[in-house]
């Protein structure tokens, strides 16, 4: 079990406290004190589970800018894929050609992999089913609603699009 570190506790505490303020939306001293106590307890108990690497990576203008730009890149991909799937749904639902493709991914770190997998799942038409590591390489198993390319590398290019480049820029 990993040890509890101070920056991890501090960042988790700040996150919990912001959440508390958003939910209660009152700035009396009593409410704030109660929130601080509760979020400190939550941070002490749970910080070691979800922060393994650097806690304050976002306090870096280049990475924050990349994250901000990624939101718009991702929204573009999202709208394109949504229109595509909506057309299939309204067009009688028979125009599907499903399959599961194994796609190589070149990313380091758990957070980056999880972020790319979630982005792929969130685009309609593709769902990440599993992540496997073989011979030092990472592979995603992706269920794809319209398999138009059975070669793994090219399919990966089509599925990931511009997202992989941006995710790598955020986390490195």
């Amino acid at each position, binding site marked *: 079990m990993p040890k509890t570190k101070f920056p991890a506790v501090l960042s988790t505490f700040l996150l919990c406290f912001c959440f508390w303020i*958003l*939910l209660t*939306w009152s700035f009396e001293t009593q409410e704030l004190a109660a929130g601080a106590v509760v979020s400190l307890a939550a941070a002490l108990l749970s910080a070691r589970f979800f922060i393994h690497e650097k806690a304050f990576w976002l306090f870096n203008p280049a990475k924050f800018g990349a994250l901000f730009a990624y939101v718009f890149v991702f929204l573009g991909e*999202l*709208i394109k894929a*949504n229109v595509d*799937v*909506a057309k*299939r*749904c*309204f067009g*009688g*639902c*028979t125009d*599907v*050609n*499903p*399959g*599961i*493709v*194994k796609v190589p991914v070149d990313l380091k770190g758990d957070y980056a992999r999880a972020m790319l*997998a*979630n982005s792929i*799942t*969130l*685009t*309609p*038409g*593709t*769902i*990440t*089913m*599993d992540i*496997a590591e073989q011979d030092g390489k990472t592979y995603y*198993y992706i*269920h794809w*609603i319209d*398999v138009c390319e*059975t070669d*793994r590398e090219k399919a990966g290019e089509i599925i990931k699009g511009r997202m992989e480049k941006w995710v790598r820029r955020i986390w490195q």
Partner: protein
Amino acid sequence: MALRIVIDVLVAVGFIFALAGTKGILKMPDTFCRMQASTCVTTLGVLGVVLGGALYAFCIMGSVSTGVKVLLIGLLLITINPVGAHAIAKGAYKNGIRPDKEMEIDDYRGDFE
């Protein structure tokens, strides 16, 4: 007045995508394709309502706390739902649920068994 039209258009676009996703869930041929259709509901269907609602809360109601809460609900739904979709897809495949028609390419079967 123009603001209200913008809000209506946002919510209506969200509703159209939610309708498409619901039709997909009812009509798609196999389990995994239904999952694909359900992500249509959870992305743009939510995003339209959340953006329109936040605009309404900030600009017409003038209540910051309501707007922030609406945005929070959107963020929560959008960041949390892919995890559930991924878990359900993996669980369904490992449980032995397969589509009726043979799939075009199935890399998972060979590596998993």
